């Protein structure tokens, strides 16, 4: 079983420390939610896990499947089974969704076997259609340029389509609910739920509780000022919804 283990992680952007000793373990099959006010470093955590070059790890470690991934390039992390659904997916003009997904799949195959000829086109098309149907996406979506001119909902669905195609072992969903109306939120959540199970561990990063009405976490963590400050079960999310974050702040202040 794959583990993602984050230990005492310190991360800076342009000399400013954002993560200040964050520890968390996510196992395959588990759904974790990280909640917290804006500006506490949630997205920094997401980008750091995926290896964005602007985020500098100054201390601590990230191990995935017992491998120190800090030295790995983002593509190596991805091929190892890590996935990040972006809060702001990037447009790649001129590259179709289908072409992109095929390249991503073939990159995986080539690492296993350098002589691989790539996934056969009919097999790929069939697979892609199935996944698009699951997410109630029009088939002509495959021929559109990736995230180019997509609506907010289309972008998030495209992220989940990638999740469904690449089949990672641990997926980080960074504010996947932002910019979604209720219908889109339901479709995206249903997609995640359909994929969740013993083979997939999920780390949901969200500002709002509402996403957790659709994706039920096993564990809920509260993040503040670059650390996990409170962890609990699903009821912690409900408590936060009702009482906000102030009581946690007070608790921290008392402890100090």
């Amino acid at each position, binding site marked *: 079983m794959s583990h993602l283990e984050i230990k005492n992680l310190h991360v800076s952007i342009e000399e400013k420390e954002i993560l200040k000793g964050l520890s968390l373990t996510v196992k395959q099959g588990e759904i974790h939610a990280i909640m917290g006010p804006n500006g506490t470093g949630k997205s920094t955590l997401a980008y750091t896990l995926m290896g964005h070059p602007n985020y500098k790890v100054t201390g601590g470690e990230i191990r995935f499947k017992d491998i120190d991934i800090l030295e790995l390039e983002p593509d190596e992390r991805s091929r190892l089974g890590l996935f990040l659904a972006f809060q702001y997916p990037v447009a790649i*003009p001129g590259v179709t969704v289908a072409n*992109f997904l095929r390249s991503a799949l073939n990159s995986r195959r080539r690492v296993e076997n350098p002589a691989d000829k790539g996934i056969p086109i009919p097999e790929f098309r069939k697979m892609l259609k199935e996944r698009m149907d699951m997410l109630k996406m029009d088939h002509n979506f495959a021929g559109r340029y990736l995230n180019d001119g997509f609506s907010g909902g289309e972008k998030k669905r495209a992220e989940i389509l990638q999740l469904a195609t690449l089949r990672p072992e641990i997926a980080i969903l960074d504010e996947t609910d932002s910019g979604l109306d209720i219908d889109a939120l339901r479709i995206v959540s249903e997609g995640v739920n359909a994929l969740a199970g013993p083979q997939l561990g999920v780390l949901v990063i969200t500002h709002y509780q509402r996403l957790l009405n659709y994706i039920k976490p096993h564990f809920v963590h509260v993040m503040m000022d670059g650390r996990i400050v409170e962890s609990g079960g699903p009821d912690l999310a409900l408590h936060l919804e009702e009482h906000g974050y102030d009581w946690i702040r007070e608790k921290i202040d008392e402890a100090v």
Partner: protein
Amino acid sequence: MQEKPKITVARSRRPDSSIKGFAFSHLDLPDSKNGLGSFRSSAWEEFTHQPFPSSSMEAWRRTDLRFFPSAEFGLPKENATHDLSPVPDELLKPLIGDRHAGQITLLPGSSHIELDQEVRRKGVIFTDLVTAEREHGDLLKSLIGTIVRPGDGKFAALASAMANSGIFLYVPKGLNLEWPLHSLMWGPGGNLAYFSHIVIFVADGASITYIHESASPDESQPSMHAGIVSIHVGQEARFRFVELQSWGRHIWNFSHERAQVNRGGNLDWIFGAVGSKLTKNFSDLDLVGEGALGRMSGFYFTDGNQHLDHDTQQNHLAPNTTSDLLFKGALKGKSRSVWQGMIYVAPGAQKTDGYQANRNLVLDDQARADSIPGLEILADDVRCTHGATVGKLEQEPLFYLKSRGIPQREAEKLVVEGFFDPIMQRIPLDGVRERFQKAIHVKLSDE
């Protein structure tokens, strides 16, 4: 890393830009027993009077010829081809479908011509310049020098005078040719001067596709090419013309090209340029008849020390004419590209629709792209738009692609291919698209 040897160059003199000596003279003008003699000698006369291009001329401001080694080029001898690199088979493959209606290979000092018998019987002339002069002298004489004139520039004059190599394509009225014609100019060898003159006449109502490629291997010594392409698209005629430039890295390449599109005619003009040391290319689209339409699509990719300068003109000389230009280029290494474009709308050319866009993707810090659009509009009821951009390979798209498991090099290739996709969409010819894709692949893999 090995230290680079230090080279000290003592420059005793700065090459003079006004006088350029060539190793040939009017005595070297091709024999013209049957027709083009007076055209050539008057072009030579023009050549001697034209000033040598210098950076003080607007068209040459960004392309420096001070170190153009004009005196080092000799003319290829007859049948010189036997001593030089042969044509790679790959360049002779059909680029559209699986066959040609005709194919001409222009070699140093000789040529090879094939034309389908049926096509010949229908009245199509597709032959080299020497044969055209011999067999269709009067027709050729009446057409040559009327669209691109020797007075258009120093190299236009020189090519008009000296070109013995070239193509004459004549498509008779109303003829619709299903299969494309293909020609290749192969210019191997160093210290050589190549000249070419292509004369194309697509008569009223005719329709045809023609691909011409200029190519050579890389050589250690410099060579030059000066060429002319003149195109007549008749009334209601349709002409698709693909030009591929894959000269070796040693070639100084100059060309003057102009297409005249008559009433209701349609020209689809496609350029692909990946070769040469330096290129200065003038491509003018003259929409001379009402309702004429011209589309120009350019693909270029430079690397190393290459310098490619494309100078385009979209001249709307009649009402209701439409032009649509898109040039896209990527640059690597220390290479440089220049695109300088002008849409001109003549007085009275109302209801004109002109568009021009140039997009550049600079892949290395030391590469540089200059993009200079221009409009000159002398009519009041027109629609003209233009755009020019120079961008870099950005980090965020690459990170996004890599986060999906795609390695850096592959991610870069996807972004570059994506960048060129709008050009590929304009080229409904699989073989040509594949050539461009292959060029992208080769250029990106070369270190």
